[in-house]
């Protein structure tokens, strides 16, 4: 059973081409619906020192933003028309500060949300907010695609980063549609310490047995970190396996009323050269 209902969150037709292309790959793999959700950032109100809005200036700011969005939308619609399959273009107007929450609501009705990796792109803050909102707030997985991704399929050879934690279990379950279609799957542990309550007495073996019951044949690779940080070890391991997808838990810690990314999650989301499927 493949993903059926896919949402790609986009900010720009050009920069988000990889996300859209990954969405099209999902359609080829059996998805029936792809929505290109174009995020429209509402400009922040401008106030004078007296707290009164300068209306002329504000009108200009709004007009500028509208024009920019209309151009992006036209470009995206033109791009979607060229696609082999129908792609629905939707608008998601968001006020700054609410991008994450609004995108999460949208993502709750999709099987998976796709985004281009925010690092290094324009509107980084808003992109990151959407990524954070969808990862922590949608209850569904997120696929992050690198800005230079040029693939035609996601998940031919899949690496699953396994540490025995809740989020990893979540990601593994959410990745089922992709795992079912994969040619090869490797379970990767990094500097694993055998333990009964975590990765098991033979790290990776229990989860491999579970996947076998789901009809999936996997290999287990217990990687030695060799003093590198975990993200680098994982990326190197994925390269060695010739993977085209990494599945991992997306970690965050609650800080006051917000959730902040865990270290490994942040670093993978910043530098992974391969598409990442994450769940929280």
């Amino acid at each position, binding site marked *: 059973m493949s993903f059926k209902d896919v949402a790609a969150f986009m900010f720009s037709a050009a920069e988000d081409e990889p996300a859209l292309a990954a969405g099209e790959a999902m359609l080829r793999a059996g998805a029936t619906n792809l929505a290109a959700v174009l995020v429209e950032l509402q400009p922040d109100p401008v106030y004078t020192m007296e707290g009164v809005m300068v209306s002329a200036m504000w009108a200009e700011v709004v007009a500028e933003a509208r024009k920019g969005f209309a151009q992006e939308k036209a470009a995206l619609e033109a791009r979607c028309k060229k696609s082999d399959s129908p792609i629905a273009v939707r608008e998601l107007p968001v006020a700054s500060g609410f991008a994450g929450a609004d995108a999460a609501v949208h993502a709750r009705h999709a099987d998976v949300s796709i985004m281009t990796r925010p690092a290094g792109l324009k509107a980084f803050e808003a992109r990151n907010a959407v990524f954070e909102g969808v990862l922590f707030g949608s*209850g569904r997985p997120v696929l992050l695609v690198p800005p230079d991704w040029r693939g035609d399929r996601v998940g031919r050879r899949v690496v699953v980063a396994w540490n025995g934690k809740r989020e990893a279990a979540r990601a593994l379950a959410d990745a089922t549609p992709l795992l079912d279609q994969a040619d090869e799957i490797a379970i990767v542990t990094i500097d694993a310490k055998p333990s*009964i309550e975590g990765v098991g007495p033979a790290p990776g073996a229990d989860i491999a047995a579970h996947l076998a019951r*789901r009809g999936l044949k996997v290999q287990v690779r217990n990687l030695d970190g060799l003093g590198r940080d975990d993200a680098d070890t994982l990326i190197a391991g994925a390269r060695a396996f010739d993977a085209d997808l990494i599945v991992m838990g997306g970690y965050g810690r609650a800080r006051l009323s917000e959730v902040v990314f865990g270290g490994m999650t942040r670093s993978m989301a910043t530098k992974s050269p391969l598409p990442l499927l994450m769940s929280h």
Partner: protein
Amino acid sequence: MSLKDILAIAIRLEADEPALRAAALLSAQFEAHATALVLGVHASSDYAESIAKLSDVLADLAQGSRGMAAREHARIEEWLSRQHGRFETRKLVIEDALLRREVLAHARHADLAVMTRPAPDAMQEAHEHVLHALLFGSGRPLLLVPPGWNGNNLSDRILIAWDAKREAARAVADALPLLRTARDVVIATIDAIPEDGGHGPTPGKDLAVHLERHGVDVRVNNVDGMGRTAAAALMDEAAALDANLIVMGGYGHARAREWLWGGVTRELTEYARTPLFMSH
């Protein structure tokens, strides 16, 4: 999500037979592997406080392998032996399961955990602790079967308790294998406000469209709470539908290393007469 690997929790046969029966039922329906995780409670355990007098504790210690936990285990094994070899059995001492959180390692390697919901009996505290750990910590869905449940179907008529939040989206995604086999699925919202709290202009419709893309036919019922608690309204809806299952988000808030239950979740897990399928 697939349903190929089911974990049933058994502490005392008397109380936990409903969970074992539910697991057997699902395992037959989905041709899934079933595991019974038997949690041994020795008379000296804190969890046995209310049923074991000091003299019993001493007798239990003296009896060793013929003691209380062993007798209960034998009873459960005897029940399982009548299930045509459907179950694999694993054995854990309840303190290891809970204090060392080993129960989570087992649940994270399964597609679904099944347990009987706590009832005011000798094992209430044990059941509550297991429920708490699994719901908030496993990353996998939990099927909570009411005490004394004697149904023979879990997926014919399903009620989805839909509040458009992350946890509910999670539960619906996790319940897809069951939803696909259902004859009648009702999405119930209680006192929903359009365009508020994650709902769109027509509460429940977005989810209905999404589920239809998965081949699940659904009806939406926007229920007026009429002063009832949301939980009471849901239980009434479930009764009216004669639902075999309620699919719902399992809510809790992390407070100083502890999880506090959400109100609706608490009330349903205490009183619902319908099995509950929950994800967090």
